């Protein structure tokens, strides 16, 4: 644990209910600068839901998320939810703060998706370039009438540089969705990096990859942490990868956090072995 460093992400008592289903229940976690933290758990444990709450896709039923020391998401049960709320921390939070995902991205969070979501009609280069849109200083008029030329050139160069770094320069003008699977994953990460994040959230980056590709990816993730000075939060099923690169691991089961600790601790944890490793061998 790197508690000496500032806390990048703090999640407190986050609960997400859909009707009567509690997808995430009182989940709390923190991540410190420069860490790679993994969330693991069997299918349906609520990992992606937790991700979606942190990135602002869903407004949580209850709980709070702080980013870089300031509160960014907060909610408490109200309306229909108030009656049906099944969590334990009702009344603890009193504010409603529900930013849209783009606001969080602007603050420095960037993510990838479990089922790759590249922009299909656009080239590899454009996919990265558009992620730079957020960093623009131009407005609609200056952009339309070409008054932002300097910025446009700079962003294009940055995008090209990024592609160079992640090793996708050779497919720069290909259609994003025509790339092989592994490269699409890599492009998605590059696109997220283009927003210049402090925290990178990777949703099952190794899903569907062969062992060879997984090894490469493991190295790649470690590389980008160092090169771009980002903290990384990832969901993953590939235990080799997780155990290899994670500094700490949180384990979810049925929406509840059942354990957290270093990879060695987790590997030794009885609960985890019962609930997860014992039941499902890593995929």
């Amino acid at each position, binding site marked *: 644990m790197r508690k000496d460093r500032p806390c990048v992400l703090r999640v407190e008592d986050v609960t997400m209910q*859909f009707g009567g289903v509690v997808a995430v229940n009182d989940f709390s976690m923190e991540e410190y600068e420069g860490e790679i933290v993994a969330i693991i758990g069997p299918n349906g444990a609520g990992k*992606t839901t937790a991700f*979606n709450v942190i990135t602002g*896709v869903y407004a949580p039923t209850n709980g709070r998320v702080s980013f870089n020391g300031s509160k960014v998401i907060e909610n408490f049960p109200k309306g229909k939810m108030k009656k049906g709320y099944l969590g334990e921390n009702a009344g603890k939070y009193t504010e409603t703060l529900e930013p849209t995902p783009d606001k969080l991205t602007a603050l420095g969070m960037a993510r990838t*998706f479990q089922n790759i979501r590249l922009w299909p009609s656009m080239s590899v280069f454009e996919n990265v370039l558009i992620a730079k849109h957020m960093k623009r200083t131009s407005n609609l008029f200056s952009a339309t009438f070409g008054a932002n030329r300097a910025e446009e050139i700079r962003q294009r160069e940055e995008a090209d540089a990024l592609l160079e770094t992640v090793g996708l320069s050779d497919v720069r003008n290909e259609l994003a969705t025509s790339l092989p699977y592994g490269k699409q994953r890599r492009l998605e990460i590059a696109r997220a990096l283009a927003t210049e994040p402090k925290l990178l959230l990777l949703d099952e980056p190794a899903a569907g990859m062969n062992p060879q590709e997984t090894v490469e990816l493991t190295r790649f993730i470690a590389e980008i942490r160092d090169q771009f000075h980002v903290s990384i939060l990832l969901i993953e099923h590939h235990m080799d990868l997780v155990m290899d690169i994670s500094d700490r691991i949180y384990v979810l089961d049925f929406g509840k956090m059942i354990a957290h600790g270093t990879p060695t601790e987790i590997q030794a944890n009885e609960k985890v072995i019962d609930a997860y490793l014992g039941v499902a061998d890593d995929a």
Partner: protein
Amino acid sequence: MAKTILPYIISGISVGGQYALIAIGYTMVYGILRLINFAHGDVFMVAGLMMVYMAASMPLYIAIPLMIVLTVLLGFLIERVAYRPLRTAPRMSVMISAIGVSYLIQNLALYITGGLNKNYPTIPWISDRVTVFGMETSRVTIITPFLTIILVVLLVQLINHTKIGMAMRAVSLNFETSQLMGIRINNVISATFIIGTFLAAVGSMLFFTNYPGVVPTSGAMPGLKAFVAAVFGGIGSIPGAVIGAFIIGIAESLIKGLDTILIVQGTISEQIGFATFSDAFTFILLIIVLVFKPTGLFGEKTTDKV
């Protein structure tokens, strides 16, 4: 007061019943295909036109069943030709196809009728004049709501208690899964279109008996309003569509009479011109519903998956 308002309510209920019969077609198709079948209103108009031409050359007891059969056939064909090939295409393409079909039907009708108003044949008995609560009106006004409700009850029975009905419910819940479960999607969709157009054909008979002029654009507005009724009630829900249709029918009728009602009441002294908004009001209602309760009165909430 009651005597002033009653005629508007009765006329509104009658129009509402006719909208309801069209709205069911919209709501069922949307429930299954997620498609606004823009051509549905035009099918309704074609049913009216067919009746005009057929009644001129054959007795009504042949013309009416034949008209219904042909209308159903048309609905079936439209699905086959214009929607089925686009089953896997984006939703926008299908909607554009629906708009294209609507455009084609209207232009075809314009060509055949020469753009002239066609007078709907008088169907005996239902178009007779009757007196209700001291108010003169035609019999069709009175029987429409009852007929509508009977048909809807029958339809709900069909959907709840027959195999095809169960299949329809399954498909509307989840298209892909039902397909995997061995439900013959195409048959279910065809059945939906057949039921929808059948009701539209019956509705057209009542509507045009009440308002006996058929022009190529006759179907557009009632169609749009019926769709709004379906959205209002919660798209996919048949009782919702029916209730929505009645609300819209009555509201529309009251809006047209609002100036008069207020003047008779003494609230205002001169015309304000609310009648101008009789069509627009339907859409105001629609937007209010969409903004505040996007799933309508009886619709179910769905969440997008990320």
